[in-house]
């Protein structure tokens, strides 16, 4: 294929505000290959979530557009499953039912009841949640909720899995475990993933490419860093790796030297 799998072309986004409009994104261009893990990193308010929501179809780009496997994206759909930061599980449904709601809707014409049941359990198995199928979100920890959120996303069998700061609200240890799980799943299923993060280590550890965004308004892609670390990656081994630290400082340089003080950029 000459075209890339997911193609963002000249995406700009303007939100109407009182007395005019606010330009959140300006001319964002990004090509993503199938099976690639891409992180979006940048300071708060730089439009990372807007990019994700445009790909997810929740927002419509003002100009430009998104093409996934040769088809234009203009509404939300299960082929671009979203994992939200605050997990967004339905609190009145059990873990199993939360995934089942999505599976029954997405596969209502292609899977029978038994196959759906297997598929739901299989996906919860992937995120190591088989022991809590019939618990409600209020009865499990934040990390587990996020696991279920990921299982729900995976269960839709999306072409691209979109993750909006999936581990942002978790403590460091839980986050590390979830990152390991995510790497495991990614190596097993080879999903295409776009993840928003604030965490430089997380970005370097997980990604094939890190997309660094400039500060808003009119944010755009400042720099793209290719991470050529061999997989599988282990956080302990990488801590001493020169290459890893080189990538890490590259991202830090961008975030804190070139973006933190916008006045310098203007000068």
């Amino acid at each position: 294929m000459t075209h890339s799998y997911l193609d963002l072309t000249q995406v700009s986004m303007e939100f109407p505000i009182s007395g005019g409009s606010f330009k959140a994104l300006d001319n964002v261009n990004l090509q993503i290959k199938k099976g690639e893990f891409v992180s979006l990193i940048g300071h708060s308010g730089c439009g990372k979530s807007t990019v994700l929501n445009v790909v997810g179809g929740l927002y419509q780009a003002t100009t430009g557009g998104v093409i996934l496997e040769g088809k234009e994206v203009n509404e939300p759909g299960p082929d671009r499953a979203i994992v939200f930061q605050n997990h967004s599980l339905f609190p009145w449904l059990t873990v199993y039912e939360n995934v089942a709601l999505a599976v029954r809707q997405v596969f209502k014409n292609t899977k029978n009841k038994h196959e759906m049941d297997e598929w739901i359990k299989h996906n919860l198995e992937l995120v190591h949640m088989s022991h809590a199928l019939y618990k409600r979100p209020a009865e499990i920890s934040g990390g587990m909720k996020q696991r279920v959120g990921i299982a729900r996303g995976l269960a839709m069998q999306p072409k691209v899995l979109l993750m909006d700061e999936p581990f942002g609200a978790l403590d460091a240890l839980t986050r590390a475990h979830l990152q390991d799980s995510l790497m495991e799943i990614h190596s097993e299923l080879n999903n295409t993933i776009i993840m928003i993060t604030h965490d430089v280590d997380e970005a370097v550890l997980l990604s094939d490419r890190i997309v660094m965004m400039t500060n808003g308004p009119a944010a755009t892609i400042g720099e793209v860093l290719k991470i050529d670390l061999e997989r599988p990656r282990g956080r302990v081994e990488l801590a001493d790796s020169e290459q890893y630290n080189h990538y890490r400082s590259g991202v830090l340089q961008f975030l804190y030297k070139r973006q933190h003080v916008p006045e310098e950029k203007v000068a």
Partner: protein
Amino acid sequence: MLNKNIFISLLGIDASRREGEVTEKKYDFELLKNKVIGFLELIGFTWFVPMVRLVAGEEPKKQLSEIISRIGLPLSAILLFMFIWAGVASNIKTSLGQLPGPVQVWEQSVGLVDEHHEERAKEKAFYERQEVRNTKKLEENPDAEIKIRPYTGKATFFDQILTSMGTVLTGFLLGTLIAIPLGIACGLSNKLYTAVGPLIQIFKPVSPLAWLPIITMVVSAVYISDDPMFAKSFVNSALTVMLCSLWPTLINTAVGVSSIDKDLLNVGRVIKLNWWTTVYKIAIPSALPMIFTGLRISVGIGWMVLIAAEMLAQNPGLGKFVWDEFQNGSSNSLGRIMVAVVVIGIVGYVLDWIMLTLQKLVSYDKAAVN
């Protein structure tokens, strides 16, 4: 591999394994105890919980002091109240004699129970007499026409309680049937809510006493039938209850539906739920706790309103009982009215308790309900 182990212990699998090591019998007992406690907490009988723990032999000292504070404190407050009541009452002379204290009220309540039994006995005797008379008639002439006349004795206090509860439930159910669908519609459509918002705010604080004359006139103009299924007085008070009690449910439903987490709706959009599925799979379940909070307030208002409505509408019920006793003006009247006050309070409390239990049953966040 190491990672995986940490993982498992973090997920709490370890804890459940430890539970399994406890001998099975003890485990079953623990399970039973926890089930009983869970049930008591669900139905709001939390003061029994320390008793259960005491029976299970769990920290007897702590449980005893818990029992003393949970039951002892309210009990001593009640005793103190009765004491003050008795003291104050003995100093107030009304035109109907002395204001009754707790003892006189207790005597009146016994009297009301006796009256109820007497009335039932009379009723039974009345039907038995007819039976005897009819058999005699049939013996003399097998073709004789037989009639059984219904007993028309006065309604006892307990009949009044049942009537009142029936009326309040009818009014409340009618109100709910209007309030919930309208509330959902308002919650889904901001425009509709903006449109009817002022109307809701204007009608909400209107007293039942103001509605009643209007309802009475409308009902007597519209509800015309030679053989009415419901008495007009019943329809009047039920409709008054409906009009006064539907507002909290309506407002809570609207707020509950409109304040759904946007991300939950976005999940619905991602999996492409249609409008109707979104409403009944996301909007309604998410608003259910709020809806039930509204229903609970509505029942409370309905019960308060009902007594006033019955007084004016002369619908048989507790309100009419109070009014009749007041008009009757015998030396027993004030005592009997006070019995009614206590009963009205207790029934209101029971209704609230039923709603609270239902609310806990449907609520996914148990901690949020109290």
